[in-house]
């Protein structure tokens, strides 16, 4: 049987995850000197580097057993897997933001909202009983209200610095975000001991 395969989101979460693996006593030499390789041995495991959305896809289909991915991606894309641990790092939040002093909650005019996360935005406005027009934007969402395309945005806010420098501010927070460990539904049951050994290792390392 192949080694337990772990999908790790490239980029923002990578560094904190590597620190976590080292605290768990795993040898991350290969992972740190990966060059252009995409699958790397880490201790007895196989580490796969992938984009956040793909981490969900690989874990859902069972070609990877465990995944490290942000709650933002899980909330937007969804899927069938176990979301077992909140790792506590990669903290930020989803928020609605708009030009300083704007009010999007009153009046009869249809609001236009730009976002990279249409599902999150749609659920949020639905829960507020609002019917808004959503426009999907791929890059710097802050541009949309500045250019007059949208009244507000729904986006990830870390420090709020980008918003501030562009004359925008948070209107309301939607949900907190942090890195999560997800597990394939069948793997948890068919390779229970190996997966529990790994997740227990995480829990122990996090409490140190």
């Amino acid at each position: 049987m192949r080694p337990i395969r772990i999908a790790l989101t490239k980029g923002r979460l990578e560094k904190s995850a590597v620190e976590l693996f080292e605290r768990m006593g795993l040898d991350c030499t290969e992972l740190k000197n990966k060059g252009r390789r995409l699958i790397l041995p880490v201790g007895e495991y196989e580490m796969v580097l992938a984009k956040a959305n793909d981490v969900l896809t690989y874990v859902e289909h069972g070609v990877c057993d465990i995944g490290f991915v942000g709650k933002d991606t899980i909330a937007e894309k969804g899927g069938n897997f176990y979301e077992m641990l909140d790792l506590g790092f990669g903290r930020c939040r989803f928020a609605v933001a708009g030009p300083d002093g704007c009010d999007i909650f009153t009046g009869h005019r249809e609001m236009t909202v730009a976002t990279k996360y249409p599902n999150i935005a749609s659920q949020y406005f639905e829960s507020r009983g609002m019917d808004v027009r959503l426009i999907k934007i791929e890059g710097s969402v802050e541009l949309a209200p500045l250019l007059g395309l949208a009244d507000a945005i729904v986006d990830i806010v870390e420090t709020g610095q980008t918003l501030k420098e562009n004359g925008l501010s948070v209107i309301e927070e939607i949900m907190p975000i942090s890195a999560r460990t997800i597990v394939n539904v069948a793997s948890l049951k068919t390779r229970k001991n190996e997966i529990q050994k790994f997740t227990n290792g995480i829990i122990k390392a996090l409490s140190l």
Partner: protein
Amino acid sequence: MKKYMKKTPEGLKDMLYEECAAKAEIERSITELFTMRGYSRAITPTIEYYDLFDDDMTGIPQEQMYKLMSMTGRIMALRPDMTIPIARLVSTRLKDMPAPIRLYYTENIFKVNINGSGHENEITQSGIELIGAKGFCADLEVLDMAVKVFEKCGITDYTIEMGHAGFFDSLVGGLGVDGEKKESIRKSIESKNYAELSRILSGMEDSPAAEVLKLLPSLYGGAEILDEAERLCAGNEAAMECLDYLRELYVKLTDISSGSSINLDLGMVHRNNYYTGVVFRGYINGYGNTVISGGRYDKLMEKFGRDMPATGFAVENNALISSLIASKGSRLLPKVGAVIYAERGYEAKAVILAGSLADEGCINRLCFSGGEEGAVSCAKELGAQRVYIVAEQVKTVELR
């Protein structure tokens, strides 16, 4: 050429050769298993009225169903499930049939997945429904049949896990929370989302049920988790009843299914508005999805006006097919035994020969060009051992 002429629609596919052979073999094995245990086949229409599969009834969201409009303006759906049509059938055509009623099916069901997800939208499911029977022996029969599906299909490396819908209900009932909150508790237990579950249950620390619910996602494994659950639930009579029942089933099923892996997951709370008692799932080691899904659903028949207990399960045949292809590969394909070539004027004689060889059980093919040489090379390619050249006389060439 038209734009969509050469591709199959998203999520749908063609099947050929080994796949078709494996599918036929799996369906043959399953049919034999179900028939020998007294189940009769039911065939229901591929298209039904959408009302039948309404979200309240099935828990299947409407955007996951293929829909079309009938000539009379009614909304129709490609069936997303087989249990509901069988419940409809039992409540109508079989309303005078004495219980228990045992039916099985092998049919395609349909589900609209998001484009690009890689999931299949047309899925062949086989399954049984045991309607009008309650109690231990009925539950054991159905679980045993699930185990036998794996064994009959030559799969040794599988896991069956059991849970109980009543266990969750007995705990959440004591919290005094509304339907919406109950649903969010259920969802976070189902996805083993410990972080979200503790957040929802925070502030209920003085409730013993909330404390057990918090641990529910981790209560999976062997008999030891029943010991732990019993310790946690002392005093909660309804919960203890579920645990006792599960323990007895677990012990008996482990006894009768030698060598297999039977487990428990008390946090199995999927489709909780549908299942009412024992629930179970089956997995094949190394296959990333649930292969068997089933359980007791005592409240469904009542919605069709015939209040009867019921239990059953469905198998995703694709998982069994992949596993069979992985172990047997091209050995699944029928072996051609002979190739026949007809000289001009002797075609009818060749076709008669093809028919009589087939009757004797020799798989054969006619070869249309290239003379004797062409027929021999065709036979070599197919691994056939004999070539017939049909003219006034029939010449037989033996190949090694």
